[in-house]
């Protein structure tokens, strides 16, 4: 949720850091700004989903965390692929966060209760 709010507040700064200069014309920047806001909305929606699951029973929580792990894998691989292709520069802290969430979910799911 915090990340989503950040995407709203500093959308043009994130766009400036993410895309190469040749794409950042006035039109490009406006589209990037609008799309960052859409991304922010989705992040907030996802935050609400996960936050509402904080008090569910252990078995259900484990299933939900498995889903979070799979989902973070998609985000992590996407970010790494873009980094390797060098077409855009996804924010490194974001990729690290996705990697950490992935690691945490694997550790939590693997634990016995």
């Amino acid at each position: 949720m915090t990340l989503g709010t950040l995407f709203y507040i500093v959308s043009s700064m994130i766009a400036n850091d993410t895309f190469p200069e040749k794409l950042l014309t006035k039109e490009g920047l406006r589209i990037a700004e609008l799309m960052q806001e859409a991304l922010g909305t989705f992040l907030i929606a996802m935050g609400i989903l996960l936050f509402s699951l904080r008090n569910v029973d252990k078995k259900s929580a484990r299933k939900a965390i498995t889903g979070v792990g799979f989902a973070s894998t998609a985000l992590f691989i996407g970010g790494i692929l873009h980094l390797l292709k060098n077409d855009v520069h996804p924010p490194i802290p974001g990729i690290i966060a996705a990697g950490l969430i992935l690691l945490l979910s694997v550790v939590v799911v693997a634990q016995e209760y």
Partner: protein
Amino acid sequence: MLKFITPRNVLITTGLGFLLTGVIFQIDSIQLAKDTFPKELLTQEGLRIAELMQEGLGTLLIMVGIIIFTARNIEKEAARKLVISIGIGSSVLFIGAIMHLLEDDINPPISGIVMIGTFILLTVIASAQD
């Protein structure tokens, strides 16, 4: 008929719905960008940025879909909580899209807005049932 709208069925429907929409965003990103943004913004650079961002949005949609779909077999009370939060989360998306439509700066896809509206309706029905 309404008895089929259980939290589990809503989780399956919304999960698959988000997942499929995410895949469509990945596959058809250019066409979606052309339909969404006004022509004056769709320069070569604008279109490229829109394409990349639609793919990013597609990844997030797939993520949400995976999270919801993997939670389809959780126990009833937890499923109900999740369904309520899907309703709240979808309302955020719905209000954002409607505001953009009213401001007339961009045209979010109507099919997407209808889908999100349907999800909200389903979550309300499912969470209200005994």
